[in-house]
């Protein structure tokens, strides 16, 4: 079967390069994202579940941009071409595709699809481009988050967390192309928002101040450019004398009240001799109505712990 098709292709092509037989011109004329689905069906399905797909049609974006009339809001939500570190300009066509395949992969300069791999792709020219595996690929739009990330000094890229490795898979699902291609490293185009794990946070109680530290997420928690994600901290403070007080704190990326990477955030607790603090941490993503629970923690007073109590569930380390 495979040799037959290749033979057929060579016969058709004569002395021409094999590529030109299969080339599909419209792919280089900035088609709609669903055109890419003809071959990259799996990637398309993933992307459709990502926030990038919703960037233009998002109800909240529509409201806050006053029905797309605040012009300075539009470029990042329907970009023409994504280049590292550069704020994009607004796209003219198919804005409903939001942050689309063509915007991220097609380059006017080379008239080809750029990506992280070396591929043989007869339907459209492709070019291996290592910019795709670096964090500054995301920086033109996620400007604030990128700055925070850089300050953290980590070597983990945005992609390594937000485009997690899916192992080796086919890039294309269309007959007959998939027959010619081996499976290749794939990364998730769901661009998951992720959620902090309980162990990403650390707590320390000292002199009636509860220090909360984002220990492992290399950007602010929460982080944002134009969205308004929030973190809710609800601390129940148990005193030696049996009294209980509740302290609530709203953290928000926009009001710069955040857990910066490895910078302890001090939460002042009311006076009195504390026995234990029980903390619930919830978060609300920018585009979601509901809150999600990140974790519940019990932090005994250090003097109390010395007296023989266990420090289970994220005590001071």
């Amino acid at each position, binding site marked *: 079967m495979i040799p037959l098709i290749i033979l057929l292709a060579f016969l058709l092509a004569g002395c021409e390069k094999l590529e030109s037989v299969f080339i599909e011109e419209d792919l280089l004329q900035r088609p709609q994202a669903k055109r890419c689905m003809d071959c990259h069906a799996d990637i398309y399905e993933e992307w459709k579940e990502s926030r990038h797909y919703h960037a233009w049609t998002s109800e909240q974006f529509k*409201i*806050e941009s*006053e*029905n*797309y*009339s*605040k012009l*300075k*809001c539009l470029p990042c939500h329907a970009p023409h071409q994504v280049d590292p570190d550069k704020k994009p300009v607004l796209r003219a066509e198919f804005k409903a595709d939001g942050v689309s395949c063509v915007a991220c992969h097609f380059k006017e300069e080379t008239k080809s699809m750029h990506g992280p791999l070396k591929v043989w792709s007869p339907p459209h020219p492709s070019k291996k481009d290592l910019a795709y595996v670096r964090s500054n690929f995301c920086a033109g739009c996620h400007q*604030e988050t990128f700055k925070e990330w850089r300050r953290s000094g980590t070597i983990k890229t945005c992609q390594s967390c937000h485009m997690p490795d899916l192992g080796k898979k086919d890039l294309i699902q269309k007959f007959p192309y998939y027959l010619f291609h081996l499976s290749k490293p794939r990364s998730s185009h769901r661009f998951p928002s992720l959620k902090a794990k309980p162990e990403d946070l650390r707590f320390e109680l000292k002199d009636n101040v509860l220090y909360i530290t984002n220990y492992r997420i290399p950007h602010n928690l929460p982080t*944002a*450019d*134009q969205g*308004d994600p*929030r973190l*809710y901290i609800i601390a129940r403070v148990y005193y030696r004398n049996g009294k209980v007080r509740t302290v*609530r*704190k*709203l953290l*928000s990326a*926009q*009001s*710069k*009240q955040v857990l910066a990477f490895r910078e302890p955030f001090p939460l*002042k607790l009311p006076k009195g001799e504390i026995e234990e603090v029980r903390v619930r941490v919830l978060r609300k993503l920018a585009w979601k109505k509901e809150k999600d629970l990140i974790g519940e923690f019990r932090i005994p007073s250090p003097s109390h712990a010395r007296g023989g109590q266990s420090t289970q569930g994220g005590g001071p380390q």
Partner: protein
Amino acid sequence: MRVLRGFALLVLAGGLAFGENKVILKKPPKSLHKYYPPKSKNFEFLNNMYIMSTSFFGINLNINEGNWKGALEWANRLRDTYKKTSRMVPEWKKYFKPALADDLVKAVKSKNVDKVIKASKKLGQTCASCHRDNEIAVKLVYHYPSFDNLKLEDPVEFMEVKVGKYMEKMTNSLKALRIYLTQGQKDMAQEAGTNFAERVRGLRAMCSKCHTDKASEEIYMGKNLESALTKLEELLSAEKLDQKAIFSTLDRISMTCAKCHNVHLVPAMVQEALAK
């Protein structure tokens, strides 16, 4: 040069309508809606304004260079656009005097500079009289973004509220702070003060709904404000309350309120009035 000055005068004339002891703003008529978002993204009405004012300048420029043919083309364009615009908003028909646009074309045809100036002035007055009555209101309704559909999370009650409601809650905790301070109720003052500080910090979440440049936010909500808020919290948690220091810190914080109101509150209030 003489001509140039004449024209410049005309098109700038506008400003605000005023009566005895009052300034008048008229609500934009309903039929104007369709030339602005969300109904239309092309700003057809405003674009005609640009065409007309460019045409005025085109007549002027060409006459100064002795190009009467070019001037006539612009005069025709001005007349056509003027007439077209006069049909766009029926409620505003009375502002237009199409005969004066014809007169201007005739004046240009006659190649008599004085006639052109006179005709321009007359036509220009019709522009100015409409601008005086309507331009500012139209700008506020169709170009100034609205605060009305924005929501902010109240950091004390963990609840989303509209901007006006948020301001009210924040102001109430400020008033409570002042009252408890005056009455010497330390714990209550402290709680009200903490709530106030949190609410002031929370205000910043609103800025990004209109601004995309963090530098704009810093101007009012930057380090100065944060240092005043931290100072307020310190003063409130001290053993003994230093009333004088607290009040002077509150004054520092109020600078932010006043500056931000100077830029945003007036348009927001007029806009709200026009929407009623």
